[in-house]
């Protein structure tokens, strides 16, 4: 789960990390009022779950409250990577001496949380990693002991020669690690971590991604989810316990299992079609899930054919068949449907489908070809 910059900043603040003040505005007038309160130059930042906000025009300086209003007006009209900007963060502009990068991420290779720090901050860290890898220090953290002070100092000195700044940065890293663990994060990032002319070390930006698997035991973190900033179809699917991602094609896909779902999309493309979505109904299916899946898929007007590909293991194919029957009785289909199912309780499923006027196939390639030809009007 992604959380907004302003939410991540609050988590950082609570952990003791120095973060500049800031307030949220959802209208230009609010942004103006906040800028007036702070006085001086402010930064207006789009709060949206997308990287590259700056490049997209979502981060702007404003020298007066009036300018803050104008800038906020423009940013609140932006759509960044398909996501409409609904809120902006207004924060006093900081005097910056240097910009560094500090991040912690769960790393598959070392199977630990790993710190990545770089004195070359403020820009895309992947670019730094590619062009000047010597400017990045990586440090895996032993989960049994956490980040020890000497480890944090080693990274602090990698960023700053001055001991006072190194010590301040080290303290921030320990606080960041604590916030990371406490929030069940899979990524936490400060980019940039800046030094000011007064010699302070401050987190100017904040990013955090929370592991979805943590949300059940961390209700206060789960409450940070902002559904208004996500695609409505994806919110709907999540609430129905489905994994759904909308794509641009016209073959609607309903599959059990992420790997098979991706392989099905690949096969749609292989036979000359375009998948309209990724949709995984998951393991233990019940008819209700199938009803929801069909509702979500048929809501997309570009879908010209629906393809079910179910390989029953834990999933009972008769549950899926019952779901298809129930859903189509409630809302008769306006586009053709191709059903491929095999596995657990296959005989019962086929009987249910036949009794209700559906035919089913058992071969994946044949089913995909048929769905593609129905969607495109051409033989695949």
């Amino acid at each position, binding site marked *: 789960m992604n959380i907004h910059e302003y939410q991540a900043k609050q988590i950082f603040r609570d952990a003791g990390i120095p973060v500049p003040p800031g307030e949220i505005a959802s209208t230009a007038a609010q942004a103006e009022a906040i800028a007036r309160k702070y006085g001086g130059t402010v930064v207006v930042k789009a709060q949206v779950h997308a990287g590259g906000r700056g490049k997209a025009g979502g981060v702007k300086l404003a020298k007066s409250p009036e300018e803050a209003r104008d800038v906020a007006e423009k940013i609140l009209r932006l759509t960044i990577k398909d996501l409409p900007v609904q809120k902006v963060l207004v924060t006093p502009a900081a005097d910056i001496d240097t910009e560094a990068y500090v991040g912690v991420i769960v790393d598959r290779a070392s199977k630990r949380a790993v710190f990545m720090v770089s004195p070359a901050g403020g820009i895309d860290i992947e670019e730094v990693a590619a062009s000047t890898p010597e400017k990045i220090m990586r440090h895996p953290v032993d989960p049994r002991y956490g980040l020890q002070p000497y480890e944090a100092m080693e990274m602090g000195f990698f960023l700053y020669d001055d001991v006072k700044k190194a010590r301040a940065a080290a303290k921030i890293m320990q606080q960041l690690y604590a916030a990371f663990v406490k929030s069940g994060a899979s990524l936490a990032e400060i980019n940039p971590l800046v030094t000011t002319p007064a010699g302070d070390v401050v987190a100017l930006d904040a990013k955090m991604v929370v592991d979805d698997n943590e949300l059940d035991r961390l209700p206060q973190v789960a409450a940070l989810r902002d559904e208004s900033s996500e695609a409505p179809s994806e919110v709907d699917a999540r609430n129905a316990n489905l994994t759904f991602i909308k794509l641009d094609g016209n073959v609607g896909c309903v599959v059990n299992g992420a790997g*098979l779902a991706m392989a099905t999309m690949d096969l749609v493309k292989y036979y000359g079609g375009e998948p309209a979505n990724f949709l995984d109904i998951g393991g233990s299916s019940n008819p209700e899930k199938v009803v929801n899946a069909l509702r979500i898929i048929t809501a997309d007007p570009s879908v010209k054919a629906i393809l079910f590909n179910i390989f029953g293991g834990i999933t009972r194919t008769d549950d899926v068949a019952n779901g298809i029957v129930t859903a189509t009785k409630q809302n008769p289909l306006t586009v053709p449907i191709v059903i491929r199912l095999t596995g657990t309780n296959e005989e019962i499923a086929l009987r249910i489908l036949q009794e209700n006027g559906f035919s089913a196939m058992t071969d994946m390639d044949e089913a995909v070809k048929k769905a593609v030809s129905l969607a495109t009007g051409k033989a695949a």
Partner: protein
Amino acid sequence: MSIFIDNSTRLLVQGITGRDGSFHARQMMEYGTHVVGGVTPGKGGQKFDEKTPIFNTVERAVAETGANTTVIYVPPMFAADAMMEAADAGIALIVCITEGVPVLDMTRVYPFVKEKGARLLGPNCPGLISPGKSKVGIIPGRICTPGPIGLVSRSGTLTYEVVFQMTRAGMGQTTCVGIGGDPINGTNFIDCLEAFEADPETESVVMIGEIGGTDEQEAAKFVKEKMKKPVVGFIAGQTAPPGRRMGHAGAIISGSAGTAAEKMQAFEDNGIGVAKRPIDVVQLLRR
């Protein structure tokens, strides 16, 4: 022969009285797996289906039954503890089916299990099966048949699809292993490839990967440098749009690392036959 499990496997089921645990315990018994006991705290002393003893702790179960393998079907928030308990009790092979285990839990479980000298498969995996001998997990037994091909996969139902097509084409399996799609898992491709290379009955190997991470690329290098047996591979997610998460935590593409194209290229560069469709695995194995 086979890898990791065979007729000598003596299995415990952690969470045997739960919905999934009880269903699959019966399926495994039906397949012929020696299920020697179950573990559900508070139900020690009872019997599952009037025959299999249930214990309060894994330690007790091991002492009483001589179990050497366990399969875990407990809810995600209890899975880390279940894995550690099994490792501490001296179980050699721990198979965790549970989906949704927090990744930070796994950062603690992984080194713990290693220190105890156990092998962990999963979490979030379908388990494994040595056709005709033993099955541990949820892979449907009827789609498999004994034979000379080893299979290792990061996926669940896609594995079934490929195994099913192999079986239909008369290509049997020594062992099929689902390593799971989570970012931190106990056993990776290379562990399985190494075991298949050492298994005298395995003649060739199928490897099924997904977008995300670099495990397949590293495995491809291993195949070229360390393996004599032929390997064919398939990667799911060739049409996945970059930067989107497709269900598995493992299926994340970040930047250029981990795309299907990159992995298929790594396969090709290291002498692994690349299947464009699942059915092509069968064609490639025929060669």
